């Protein structure tokens, strides 16, 4: 196996590994409390997306998970210095990339 093909085959694998580790977006409830994530996209219809956007929850926004209530209860998050309560069903549709 030549060096060329190694690079050609291994490189994408390595890239994908890194992507998987760092960049695969998570649903918001998977974020540990206290951590901040960046919204990657909203998996939902126009209605939900608009309603979230009004409160500043839109792709690119930084969202901090303050706390999660038990029994699949809602999450308390902070966006742009505003606290927002989000039902668990809603939060599963918000995909974020954890920020360090």
């Amino acid at each position, binding site marked *: 196996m030549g060096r060329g093909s190694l690079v050609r085959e291994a490189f994408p694998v390595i890239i994908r590994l890194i992507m998987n580790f760092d960049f695969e977006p998570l649903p918001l409830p998977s974020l540990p409390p206290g951590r901040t994530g960046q919204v990657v996209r909203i998996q939902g219809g*126009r*209605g*939900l*997306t*608009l*309603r*979230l*956007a*009004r*409160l*500043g929850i*839109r792709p690119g926004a930084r969202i901090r998970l*303050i*706390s*999660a*209530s*038990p*029994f*699949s*209860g*809602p999450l*308390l998050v902070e966006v*742009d*210095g*505003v*606290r*927002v*309560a*989000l*039902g*668990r*069903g*809603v939060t599963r549709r918000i995909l974020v990339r954890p920020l360090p």
Partner: protein
Amino acid sequence: MRVIALVGQPNSGKSTLFNALTGYRAVASNFPGTTVELLRGKALVGGRPVEVVDLPGTYSLLAGDRAEELSRDFLISGEVDVVVNVVDASLLSRSLELTLELSELGLPMVVCLNMMDEAEHKGIKIDAEKLSDLLGVPVAETVAARGIGLAKLLSLIPQARPARPPRYSADVERALAQLSEVVAPIAKATGLPPRYVVIRLLAGDPPPGTSGQPELSQAVEEAREKIASARGEDPALVLSAERHAAAVSLFEQVAEVGHAQVGWRERADDILMHPLLGYPIMVLVLFGLFWAVFKVGGILEGLLLPPLEELSQGLGALLGQGLFSQVVVGAFQGLWAGVAIVLPYLVPFLFLLALLEDVGYLPRVGYLMDALMHRIGLHGKSVIPFLLGYGCSVPAVLATRILEDERDRLVTAALAVMVPCAGRAIVVFGLVGRYVGPLAAFGLYVLNLVVIALSGWLLARLLPGTGPGLIMEIPPYRRPNLRTLLGKVWLRLKDFVVVAWPLLIGTSALFALLQALGWSPALNNGLRFLTWPLGLPKEAGVPLVFGILRKELSLVMLTQAFGTADLSSVLSQGQMVVFTGFVLFYMPCLATLAALGRELGPRRAGLVLLGTTGVALLIGLFLRGISALA
């Protein structure tokens, strides 16, 4: 007269400003969605009278619920001469998105940067002059809660001008320009600015007067399609994202963000909304509220009731026997019942409710209760109408306007009217609490919650469907202000004083007349179908019916029907519990029925009426069985 509309995002202080400008008439509370109706008042601007209108808060002109729709429709009704855009300065960046949207309406505008104290607390410094230059409208800075900056705001209103609307990206502008040609004649007919009409068409939210035009709708579809495929998003989202970007850039030009202060208001949620601690604290807070009302009310009632008895007896002796005397004594008893039975519980309750509202605890209860509410097919926002229902059912029914989903509105309204309002609380406290004991009164409240939960569970089965779930802004805690608290208590008390009290006096007199003429036995016999199955003496029939006018009437009438203020001599404890249990649930009072009819339509209101009365009968029988066993 010129009409000035106060427009802004929820909880930005519009109603507070309205009160400061026009006198205390609007309820202002620390949760988004307090105002759900238009409220009109008068003020003087530059020595000339103007009409000021307080609108429901709205995040965007793309309305998300009924209350927002109301605001938007009023803005485009052609009635508004000047828009005062009330902005929460501590949330400037987000608020400017609405400001930019408003600028598209082309109405003369003034921006009011309210909550300047909060902005300072957060370390945000705003260059108001620069903002004024960039937007092209006068900008005033205020702290409405303390009346600061109002004179300046008023002096700027005559200088209101249309703001500079934002420019969108080239592709969006191209689409707007293309549509404009087709829309021009139609836009003229609607009387709205053409650019606004086109933007709404592109956003997929056609304004009134633009539907049913095949040529137009085809052009709109094409334009929307083009944007959607180029951007991979609905055009409404594209417009919203672009406005957001414009608002951020504006914000960065006019504001500097320094160091925020962190105090108890920021830390309180660590405990009050703690995943575990939050719940016991909530139970303690709500339980403590009822306990305090019961305690304080009991003391006040004990002080006020004996002199009432003496006075009305003295009055009877003075006037002697006869029809006239009996009617006068009856009216007098109505007057005093208001003072001695109703006010002792109503005032402390309204005060504590106002306190919870102004601190900002209500939406937190909504958050904590969300998981539980899902069990009955609702979500946490419905908790706000429920909690308001403990005060009065009418605002509770109106508050369902903040819910986005029609099904949720129906279910919440139907359940909210079962929440014991202050009028019913008076029956619980004044009858069961006083004669049977505080534990029994508390038990009735618990029973009420259980029945509401069961009804909710049942309704969720009958009317399946899931709304979008909870999305609710949680405002910061605020230090309540005694003056505004008392103002709010008075505002709500006024409803009792001007509506219920005259009713109390009038019906008391009427009732005395019925008794003097010897008609009430016949009426009571006619109501036997109600009192007999519940095991109540037949004298309780007429008081139960009077309760339809105002729930607290049923207790006051009871003392009259038996001719004694000591009800323990005529009713057994079990009968008191049954009577109260029935009053808790049976058909809502007339004012509530009217509100239900307006919000849900007559058919659904009728169903709620039948349903609650059915539940009341079941509960009455159930309680009768229990008390027979006990």
